[in-house]
């Protein structure tokens, strides 16, 4: 698509700097002129700015050190010491990669937030679980014989919904039981709210990545596109199955984890597709 003096490819190349506000005046004017005439590019910038604004509005969360290790491993590339790299143009790095990179910068903030929130929540519940399960240390006989020992929780009741994150209080008065029930309801409600927030964040970011991938389809080899689409279908089926099951058992930590993993996988695959070199 070509509008005014700037082509969409030139626009793509200038987009990261435009979003950062570091373009010089003539180029910025050319970008704005192009935006006023090109629906595709104007829509892209609108989406990116909306996501950046939403990501910026997310509250700060400071994960614990233990949690951060896991999160960091999921969002950061491994740090490998490299010899100093000469300033040569990297192969397979066309202009669209700037667009994808800009998009991914804003998407990472939202995904990180959700991972952090989920991990923090998971960590809290794990403490509660251990507190009601008794000592995790096996008995002497178990250790000596190597025979495994079951330490499963009580059988689920209709009241607790059978979720992995919910536990029946071990002993106590009716008041304690009532408090526990209220706490479980609050925990269930909190999980449901978290799930909604999570779905919204993933939804926005998946939509954005999907747009990039859709735009790039014509640049990729058809067999690669077919493989990507087939695997996206597999992931979508997993997401749907997890969501359906979770709707029936909203407190299930297993189902919540499964849904999160499937959504993460979809984001990963879309990112991979967004960065694939052309004509592959």
């Amino acid at each position, binding site marked *: 698509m070509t509008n005014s003096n700037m082509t969409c490819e030139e626009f793509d190349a200038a987009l990261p700097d435009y979003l950062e506000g570091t373009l010089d005046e003539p180029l910025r004017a050319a970008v704005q002129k192009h935006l006023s005439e090109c629906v595709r590019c104007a829509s892209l910038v609108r989406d990116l700015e909306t996501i950046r604004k939403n990501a910026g509005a997310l509250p700060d969360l400071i994960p614990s050190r233990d949690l951060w290790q896991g999160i960091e491993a999921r969002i950061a590339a491994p740090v*490998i010491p490299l010899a100093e790299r000469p300033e040569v143009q990297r192969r397979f790095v066309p202009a669209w990669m700037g667009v994808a990179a800009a998009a991914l910068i804003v998407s990472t903030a939202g995904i990180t937030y959700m991972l952090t929130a989920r991990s923090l929540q998971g960590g809290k519940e794990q403490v509660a679980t251990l507190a009601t399960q008794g000592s995790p240390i096996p008995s002497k006989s178990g250790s000596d014989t190597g025979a495994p*020992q079951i330490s499963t929780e009580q059988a689920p009741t209709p009241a607790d919904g059978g979720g992995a994150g919910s536990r029946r209080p071990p002993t106590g008065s009716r008041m304690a039981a009532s408090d526990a029930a209220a706490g479980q309801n609050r925990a269930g409600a909190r999980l449901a709210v978290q799930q909604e927030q999570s779905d919204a964040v993933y939804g926005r970011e998946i939509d954005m990545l999907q747009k990039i991938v859709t735009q790039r389809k014509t640049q990729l080899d058809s067999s690669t596109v077919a*493989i990507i689409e087939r695997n996206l279908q*597999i*992931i979508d089926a997993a997401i749907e199955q997890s969501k359906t099951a979770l709707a029936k058992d909203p407190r299930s930590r*297993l189902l919540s984890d*499964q849904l999160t993993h499937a959504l993460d*996988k979809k984001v990963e695959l879309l990112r991979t597709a967004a960065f*694939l070199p052309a004509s592959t």
Partner: protein
Amino acid sequence: MKNEMKLTCLIVTVGMAAAPVLARAQDERAFTQLDTTVRLDRGGAVDLSLISGRIRVTGWDQANVKISASIESGLLRFSANSSRVTLSVDDEGNGHYRHRNVGEARFDVSVPRGSHLILEAVSGDVTAKGSQGEIEASSVSGDVDVSDGIRAVSVESVSGSAHAAQVNGNLHAETVSGDLRAENVSGNVQASSVSGDIRLVGIQSRDVRTETVSGNLDYTGTIEPSGRYGFESHSGTLKLNIPRNAGAQFSVETFSGSIDTDFPITLQPGTKRREGHMEFTIGDGRARVTAQTFSGEIIISNGSTTRREDE
């Protein structure tokens, strides 16, 4: 001078089979065929990339990088200094379809042991053996096969297979639909796929994390004291071959799949086993093993040995 060691100083000998047809910068030149040997500092990087064809790298006991490369159509771009050797295809052209004008390329490269390899292909195969350094190898539709990496090894493919063997360090392995196989790894392992099967054999690691959506996973390896092992799938089967003498707490859970284990499970008084969820301890219980599926089967067998695959 931008770089103290210019290419012309670095080329030890050997025939440049074809004359340079383009010189973009003083330290970067383009060829259709290249046969050369350049010196590389210990631990230097060798960075090779192509669109289609193959990359084949072998480690040797010399301090030089020996390159034999050719391309059917298009140009090879080459640069070198004491810390880095770079060979790629010239993919600059017009429009999104420029790669279609580039023919198959073949890179045969010998590298000093300890070199850091960065190998990328689009539709080509990538193989590396004997380099005994860090390796980052990827292909989109080609197969990736590396061995003898140390410290950090990464293998990735979208639709091709990914294979890593004899890794003395951490392994990151990832595919989309291709099968993934790792053998004899001593270091942390991260392996993931969407629909490709994952097979991990001869693993000696304190930290293993694997995930797949519909692929099957097969793990055979040690359970180290205080180690952490996580296995996840949606519909794929998880098969864990655990040494009989392992000590670990297991948390195994599935929504609609089944759980089958060779380990004898004994219910403690006052506890009940919830369908689809099992927690049990074997040995000293120091390691933690979690396995989770939505509908996939989970099989935990105790018949594995700790010996390495090639023994």
